[in-house]
């Protein structure tokens, strides 16, 4: 189980309606079902993984978040979770908009490209960084839109959504991120976890 699953769980209210976008083999779904008694659905692009989820008794549809989120009505879920896949979409801004349309709130996690090891890797070696959270080479990575925690903050301003909570994961420890510690957190976090909501004026 990924270390951020517990953090995500703590952001979610009991018995709420949750959609896990890119639910993979359903481990987070099972975890949330057991601990928060949520009504949870998943959407997953891989046929094999959908079949794995079905074998666990989870409700999952095969689909692509960029194309298939539109079938869900506005605010049909309390939370929509997008775990470490925002950077893999062709149009992350459309995906974020859709998440915030379908869900009252969205929980987005991103592998932080601003981590010092990533920066050092590029600076010293002069090659695209390969780290624990980013294990692929440049040519076979699914991540086509890498971003940093700082980028995500800017992204929220540009696309006008509210960041309710932003947490950093550093060596399995969780801490808050705010504008005053952003520089440091952006340097040391492996992962950023954000609870976001559509701004009222949108």
């Amino acid at each position, binding site marked *: 189980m990924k270390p951020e699953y517990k953090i995500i769980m703590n952001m979610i209210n009991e018995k709420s309606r949750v959609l896990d976008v890119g639910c993979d083999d359903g481990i987070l779904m099972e975890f949330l079902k057991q601990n928060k008694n949520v009504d949870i*659905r998943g959407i997953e692009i891989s*046929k094999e993984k*959908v*079949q794995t*989820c*079905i*074998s*666990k*008794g*989870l*409700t*999952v*549809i*095969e*689909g692509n978040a960029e194309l298939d989120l539109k*079938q*869900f*009505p506005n605010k*049909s879920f309390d939370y929509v979770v997008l775990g470490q896949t925002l950077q893999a979409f062709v149009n992350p801004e459309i995906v974020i908009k859709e998440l915030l349309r379908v869900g009252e709130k969205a929980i987005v996690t991103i592998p932080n490209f601003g981590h010092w090891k990533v920066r050092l890797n590029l600076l010293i070696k002069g090659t695209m960084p390969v780290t624990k959270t980013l294990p692929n080479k440049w040519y076979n990575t699914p991540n086509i839109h890498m971003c940093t925690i700082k980028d995500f903050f800017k992204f929220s301003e540009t696309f006008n959504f509210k960041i309710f909570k932003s947490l950093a994961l550093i060596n399995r420890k969780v801490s808050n991120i705010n504008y005053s510690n952003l520089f440091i957190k952006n340097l040391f976090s492996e992962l950023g976890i954000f609870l976001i909501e559509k701004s009222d004026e949108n």
Partner: protein
Amino acid sequence: MNIKENIKTIIIKKPLKLDCGKIINNFPLAYETYGSLNAKKSNAILVCHALTGDQFVTGLNPITKKDGWWSYAVGPNKSIDTNKYFVICANVIGGCMGSFGPSHINPETKKIFGTDFPVITINDIVNAQVNLLDHFGIKQLFSVVGGSMGGMQVLQFVSNFPEKTKTAVPIACTSSHSAQNIAFNELGRQAITADHNWSDGKYTSKNNVPEKGLAVARMAAHITYLSKKGLQEKFGRKLQERDDLKFGFDADFQIESYLRYQGSVFVDRFDANSYLYITRAMDYFDLVKQFNGNLSNAFKNTKAKFFVISFTSDWLYPTQENKDIVIALNAIGTDVGFVEIESDKGHDSFLLDVPDFLKTLKNFLDKSYIE
């Protein structure tokens, strides 16, 4: 096909108003069951058969002496596990395996119905077979499952009887028969009615069977059940028991011989008029129109959990049409899962040994089942 004493039948006394306006009553509904009903009557699965299927889902079909049409999926320890579930399947009305159909005697004229049999719809078929639930005293099914036309019945069943099933599995089907679907069915019907032996549907009284027409209908339909890739891999341009082309119109190619064989065995087990009636029922199926263009409304009263399955190489009921069902269900927050199974066996995939499909169907049912 007169030896039908092995067929279980109930007589439905309650009048059934058909979509065409006619009312039928005291009519037979033939069925078969597998496994046993538990004390709580909570383990029943209604299986709905496709166009040319019948109630003999699995094991040896006592009439045709061949394996049941869904022997891969239904049986002890199989996807629909008859050690666990009580499987019921009814022959559709309009059919030719014991249920009320065009080969029956019209009580008014004392003659075989033929084309005097009323045109039936998927809705009528479902409304007839729901009587089996009362017959067994089942208030709620555990599941209703079917592929192709069987899937259409699944959708119609849940729509008509939203509380009568816990789960629903429509497979390789559609909510509205497409122009292409209707076109292929019309081709089949034209082949039958163009056969001189069809005699306006009165062939039985003339001791005839429109064999050629029915065989051609089956051949054309059979092509639509397979994929181009599947056909190419299985037959390619292989020749049939000959070293070279014969410059004639015999079956030079294996695919020709195969289709001719499929046509010829079909006429032994299927009635030409039933073929007309059932294909018509499929063509008339349009759940979208029934609910004024909003398919979601068909399911708004149900709490059933759905699982929709399609196949990559099915071009007769392609994935998008199955997905439209999923979209309609998601639009109203219904509990729906969906997967497209990789297979090059075309529309027929649901009937064949496609392990991913069989495993996934089993997983869905077994995980959804609470005694």
